[in-house]
């Protein structure tokens, strides 16, 4: 049952998603009845399941919500914008209730009671939440059948037991009552698939009984409709059960029959009852049959003809044989060809993770093998070498396929946003419209999970600080509704997420003065606009004069930046005063593998992500120039590119090396800024499996992660952006400041 409960909560999440998506669709003006139905069904489903698990609070709230939705569904209530907005909030409350139920938390009844009350005002005359929906059925179950229910095909032979009351007194039964039940089914009863025999069988479970059949209404065979109902029965039942219990057996057939139940004095005495009515086939008098039926009638089989005299079976002539066989319509199977929905299966995430790990090891092993073989000096075209090449191809393909298993669209992260936006907008008194793009963009599951916190922070920040209040916007000639755009896309082998708002942009003078106030920069520091914008990423920075609940306390952007960097990503900001800001997050597509350039620096082996490398250059005396202090630049075509000595900046060595003896890698960091990394030599290009430094050791500035090379040695993976930023900090102080 626990498992099913899990399934239920999973299903609730799906339903909640459908609910919100449907309401948003309606809000946009699409009143397709199917959408409205889907919304209704979502709430209905949640309520149904909740009832089964006795989640009363959830059931009650869902019920009110469902009622409102039902009124919309049948056209009694207009889905006006106001109502839809209310329903969106109700959906949020429902979601909270579901999660509280799932996590076994208690939830504050305030919001839901207020919402329920509000919903009711929209629904004139709505029925109050029916208590019946939530009643735990702890009532006494009917007496369990003694016979094995599954297999026994009860023989359709009713042998009435003549009861001797004296026998009863010997048994110490609960006080019993004698009932006389007169049952007269109509034809509709059978048409709906009900069967008198079965009902009587159930009746018989309640106690000893005696059944007598009245066949007086039977017409002649030629007048008889095979589907007609001409029989009625009188049943005498001795039972300790309540009359309601007896009635309940006939629940389904209430309208298609007449039923009388009265308390009788006792079992029919001999002179009262009719001919003992024994359902034994041998009682059929064929001669009687033949004498009544002058002409031979073909077609109806025994069961249809039997009711004429005593019956072999209680009459419920099987419908099928009585009619000529019609070709069973295959037009009744409107199976539209399965729509092209791809077949999916659910897989335990652990298995996928394990598979990815194994494939990672496979890659490393294959690389090692290749190296060992290369060391042997085999001819390049030898069978072994060719075989190894093929192995490498295969391994790569396997790796790509396995990574693709874990790749998921960012949709799952994006789908939490509408609610977040609604709540923050409400809290800050702003009017916000959310537009999302690229929710189908795929990224590894591990990245996705860690996306949601930074994203949440940035959205809150954009609404709280970026967007202005409606009055302010109006005064500035902007539409009162602020626009928040969140887009995901693939760019140069990474996933980029942009969060832009059309708000006021970064207030640079204010940011600068706060930074000075907090001692984060020197009062006379010369900073470009971009530099000022980036001040908000410094730890301890916060523009909120009063720490607001949402994005205050000076932890917001700093934490965001660090968590993104921990993923191997970068974040940058561009802003235009009065027009808005755009935050750009760029993340690796996967945390597992990387195409890298393997280089040597000061005797160490490093790996530089290939996606960052633009060009490989050989520094010449003519191209390298000094530029104040220790800074050097390289002339590349018509540009001067800062030259960064990797060995020095990583403090592998103190003195510079002669650039001419090394190799320069032209790299492009976030924002298109170009630098040249000076390394000793290039060893090769390889796809490496990323092993996290953070989880195994700790964060090292300038280093993104580590890997294991083919020869078994550990190589550090360079964090290009960090190196570039570091180098600027080194260089900047030494630059002569302009007057």
């Amino acid at each position, binding site marked *: *049952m626990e*498992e*099913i409960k899990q*399934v*239920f909560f999973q*299903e609730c999440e799906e339903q909640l998603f459908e609910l919100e998506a449907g309401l948003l669709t309606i809000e946009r003006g699409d009143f397709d009845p199917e959408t409205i*139905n*889907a919304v*209704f*069904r979502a709430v*209905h*489903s949640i*309520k*149904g*399941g909740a*009832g*089964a698990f006795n989640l009363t609070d959830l059931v009650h709230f869902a019920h009110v919500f469902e009622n409102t939705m039902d009124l919309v569904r049948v056209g009694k209530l207009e889905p006006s914008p106001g109502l839809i907005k209310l329903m969106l909030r109700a959906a949020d409350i429902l979601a909270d209730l579901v999660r509280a139920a799932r996590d076994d938390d208690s939830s504050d009844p305030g919001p839901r009671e207020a919402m329920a009350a509000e919903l009711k005002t929209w629904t004139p005359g709505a029925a109050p939440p*029916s208590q*019946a*929906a939530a009643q735990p*059925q702890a*009532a006494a*179950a*009917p007496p369990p*059948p003694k016979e*094995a*229910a*599954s*297999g026994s*095909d009860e023989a359709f032979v009713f042998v009435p037991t003549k009861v001797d009351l004296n026998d009863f007194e010997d048994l110490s039964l609960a006080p019993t009552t004698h009932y006389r039940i007169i049952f007269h089914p109509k034809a509709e009863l*059978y*048409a*709906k*698939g*009900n*069967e008198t*025999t*079965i*009902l009587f069988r*159930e009746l018989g479970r309640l106690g000893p009984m005696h059944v007598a059949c009245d066949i007086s209404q039977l017409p002649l065979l030629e007048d008889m409709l095979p589907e007609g109902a001409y029989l009625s029965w009188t049943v005498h039942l001795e039972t300790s059960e309540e009359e309601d219990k007896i009635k309940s*057996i006939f*629940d*389904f057939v209430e*309208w298609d029959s007449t039923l009388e139940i009265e308390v009788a004095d006792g079992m029919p005495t001999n002179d009262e009852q009719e001919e003992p009515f024994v359902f034994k086939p041998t009682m059929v008098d064929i001669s009687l049959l033949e004498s009544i039926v002058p002409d031979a009638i073909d077609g109806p089989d025994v069961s249809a003809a039997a009711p004429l005299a005593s019956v072999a079976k209680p009459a419920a002539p*099987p*419908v*099928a044989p009585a*009619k000529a*066989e*019609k070709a*069973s*319509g*295959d037009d*009744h*199977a*409107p*199976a*539209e060809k399965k729509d092209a929905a791809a077949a999916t299966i659910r897989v335990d995430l652990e298995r996928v993770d394990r598979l990815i790990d194994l494939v990672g090891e496979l890659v490393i092993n294959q690389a090692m093998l290749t190296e060992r073989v290369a060391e042997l000096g085999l001819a390049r075209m030898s069978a072994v070498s060719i075989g190894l090449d093929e192995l490498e191809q295969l391994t790569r393909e396997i790796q790509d396929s396995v990574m693709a298993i874990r790749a998921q669209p960012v949709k799952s992260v994006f789908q939490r946003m509408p609610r977040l936006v609604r709540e923050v907008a409400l809290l800050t008194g702003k009017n916000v419209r959310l537009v999302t793009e690229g929710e189908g963009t795929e990224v590894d599951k591990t990245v996705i999970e860690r996306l949601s916190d930074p994203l949440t922070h940035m959205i809150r920040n954009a609404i709280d600080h970026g967007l202005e209040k409606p009055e302010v916007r109006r005064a500035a000639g902007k539409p009162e509704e602020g626009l928040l755009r969140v887009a995901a896309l693939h760019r140069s082998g990474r996933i980029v997420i942009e969060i832009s708002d059309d708000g006021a942009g970064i207030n640079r003078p204010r940011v600068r003065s706060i930074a000075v106030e907090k001692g984060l920069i020197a009062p006379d520091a010369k900073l470009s606009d971009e530099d000022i914008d980036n001040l908000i990423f410094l730890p301890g920075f916060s523009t909120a004069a009063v720490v607001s609940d949402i994005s205050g306390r000076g932890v917001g952007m700093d934490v965001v930046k660090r968590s993104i960097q921990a993923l191997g990503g970068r974040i940058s900001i561009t802003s235009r005063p009065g027009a808005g800001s755009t935050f750009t997050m760029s993340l690796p597509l996967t945390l597992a593998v990387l195409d890298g350039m393997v280089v040597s620096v000061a005797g160490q082996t490093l790996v530089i992500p290939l996606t960052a490398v633009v060009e490989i250059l050989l520094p010449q005396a003519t191209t390298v120039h000094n530029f104040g202090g220790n800074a050097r630049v390289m002339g590349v075509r018509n540009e001067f590119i800062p030259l960064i000595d990797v060995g020095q900046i990583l403090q592998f060595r103190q003195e510079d090396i002669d650039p001419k003896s090394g190799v320069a890698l032209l790299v492009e960091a976030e924002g298109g800024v170009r630098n040249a990394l000076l390394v000793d030599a290039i060893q090769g290009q390889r796809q490496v499996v990323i092993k996290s430094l953070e989880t195994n050791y700790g964060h090292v500035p300038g280093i993104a992660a580590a890997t294991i090379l083919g020869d078994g040695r550990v190589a550090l993976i360079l964090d290009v952006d960090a190196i570039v930023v570091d180098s600027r900090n080194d260089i900047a102080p030494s630059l002569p400041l302009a007057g």
Partner: protein
Amino acid sequence: MSKIILTVDDSRTMRDMLRMALTAAGFNVLQAEDGVHGLEVLAEQKPDVIITDINMPRMDGFSFIENVREDDQYRAVPILVLTTESDPDKKLRARNAGATGWIVKPFDPAKLVDAVRRVAA
């Protein structure tokens, strides 16, 4: 030979719960997700009893029952509907569509089996 019951419901939770209650009582259970799917299953297998929900996408319970009854093979097969509360309107509509009986959601497994026994030969 145990009876075969076809359960038609779009909620996975409900399907699981029905299956659990019915197999515990010794029945064999077939499943379908909505009316259309239910008809597809019926084209291939012949259950002894059908239990169906009302609110489902693609084809709801009422249409499903009507469609089933039109098929000669299933003119008299017992069909039970799952209904929330004891909404008399829904019950009436279901009966007019040809339903044999009903089970109230949320259902007590014992009552479910009871209802099935009341109609299953």
